[in-house]
């Protein structure tokens, strides 16, 4: 990908975010439900309610509210959460790292499992075992992440209680963190006991996110491996005396990887979306879990901030996938 293409993509980000912001802003205020109704004590007078509404600017016309909000967002002020009474920016900043660490672990697990299944499946081509593997893979693909979360919760949290099923860190391991990237920080500061406990907490939710994605990667990659193996250059490598595994590793895999990354990369957005339910099920303190509370409380500023955060993540992810594909494919790099 050339620089001009990257710049073009970057230039598209502000209008995209503006569009997302506008849609969310309007939707929130059109659907029934109101943050003030959720927070007033019983018996509050209409005057009290009106005063509260004015405090949060909810008495203004829709367009005026939007313009005010836009102006604030442009200057880096995402407003105050109505239910949590804190700055949205700080709330999201504290929770986002937890979600990023969880999603990154899920993607890493999924890639390892998906690549392994695809490669083993390719080596087994034509055998009964290949059929078995494909069938099992289809099964993993068909079950969505939140169902996996429930299955894993029952399996390894309740029936065979090997792993913690809620939270991010054992409260007894109270550590003063300087950032909210607990896992990265504990690894960098060599607190491996803390890192291990964090990983134990992350394992089940990240596995729930990873399993369907791994199955998708496995299916895509296996099909691409088969296609690359049929290409002339792979066949010709055989006429040069290279072994099947060498050809798979050097000729076939690098070529099959390119479309696999391009096709599955955008699916990581689905995995990120999956954090909403999965974090909830495992009481994991990330932005997905936070989003559910924000919706229940009709916390307009928080919902808006969270949705913008997800939008930025999705855009960044798509850009990262394009860049990665360009790195893997010399034909794109040279334009």
């Amino acid at each position, binding site marked *: 990908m050339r620089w001009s293409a990257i710049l073009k993509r970057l230039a598209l980000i502000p209008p995209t975010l503006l569009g997302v912001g506008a849609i969310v802003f309007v939707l929130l205020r059109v659907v029934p439900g109101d943050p003030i109704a959720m927070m007033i004590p019983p018996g509050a007078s209409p005057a009290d309610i009106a005063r509260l509404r004015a405090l949060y600017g909810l008495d203004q016309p829709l367009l005026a509210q939007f313009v005010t909000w836009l102006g604030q967002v442009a200057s880096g002020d995402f407003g105050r959460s109505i239910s949590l009474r804190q700055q949205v920016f700080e709330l999201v900043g504290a929770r986002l790292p937890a979600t990023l660490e969880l999603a990154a672990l899920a993607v890493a697990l999924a890639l390892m499992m998906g690549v392994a299944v695809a490669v083993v499946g390719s080596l087994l081509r034509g055998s009964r075992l290949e059929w078995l593997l494909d069938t099992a893979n289809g099964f993993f693909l068909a079950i969505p992440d939140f169902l996996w979360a429930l299955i894993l919760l029952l399996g390894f949290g309740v029936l065979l209680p090997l792993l913690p099923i809620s939270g991010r860190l054992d409260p007894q391991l109270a550590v003063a963190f300087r950032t909210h990237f607990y896992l990265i920080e504990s690894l960098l500061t060599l607190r491996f006991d803390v890192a291990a406990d964090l990983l134990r907490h992350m394992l089940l939710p990240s596995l729930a996110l990873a399993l369907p994605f791994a199955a998708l990667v496995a299916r895509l990659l296996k099909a691409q491996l088969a296609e690359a193996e049929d290409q002339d250059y792979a066949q*010709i490598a*055989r006429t040069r005396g290279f072994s099947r595994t060498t050809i798979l590793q050097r000729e076939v895999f690098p070529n099959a990887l390119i479309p696999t990354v391009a096709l599955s990369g955008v699916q990581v957005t689905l995995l990120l979306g999956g954090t909403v339910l999965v974090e909830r099920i495992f009481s994991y303190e990330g932005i997905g879990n936070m989003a559910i509370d924000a919706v229940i409380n009709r916390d307009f500023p928080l919902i808006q901030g969270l949705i913008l955060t997800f939008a930025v993540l999705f855009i960044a992810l798509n850009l990262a996938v394009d860049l990665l594909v360009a790195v893997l494919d010399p*034909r794109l790099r040279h334009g």
Partner: protein
Amino acid sequence: MSAVLEIDNLHVAIGAANVLRGVSLRVEAGEVRGLVGESGAGKSMVGRTIFGLLPAKAAIRAGQVQFEGRDLLAMPDKERRGLLGRRIALIPQDPMTSLNPVRRIGAQMVALLQLHLGLSKRAALDRAADLLAEVAIRDPARVLQLYPHELSGGMRQRVLIAMAFACDPALVIADEPTTALDVTVQRQVLQLVERMRQRHDAAILFVTHDLGVVAKICRSMTVLHAGRVLEDGPTADVLVKPHHAYTRALLAATPRADRPADALKPVPPALIESLWAEARRLDQLTATRPA
């Protein structure tokens, strides 16, 4: 003279269809033998059998393939892989699809040289540069750094020719190495193949449907049709005194400098039909005969 390649009564079927019906063919050390025939005659199947690249449903029903006196079809896979790319090499048909698009030319050449010659990376790179210089590529050091898509078709075919001769093979199978190139490049590539053959002292089995090319570079030739050898002999004899009606028809269909283009006669469909009928009769005979 000793044969590098000796194919004896080779029968190959793909599923129920016979594609080679008892092919016998000899390539002497250092000679260029043409293998000619229309599309679908089975020319590529001969090469695929040698390289172990037959389609999944294909089966070798009978016959032997001897390379330098050793039975290629009977030897263990590992032993055969030791010969492929080193003693027997391929110049492929389509240079555009025959190089790995995501690996540099240098990496692809070095992998081959390291596999068969056990060279260090440094030595392999030097040898690769020498080979590129041999096939008249200017600035080999730079080309080694390039990816295939940065080279023209003619340049890529030069790289593939360099790779075919890289380990001094005794036999190179060239399967229509010029059909994918334009006419001016074709002639250069033919000359290059001939020069490399002399330098590296290899024999070539040159697969083509162009009798003009055969007349120019092949000492002997084999005419294949429907998986059967119809004619075989020194090129000079076959072209001057063809025995088989099909060879005569092929010659009449080939443009020549000493003959106006409108004198060309296509191979009569009736002749081709009778040849196929003969092949099918042969199939029935072999099918009813106990194996």
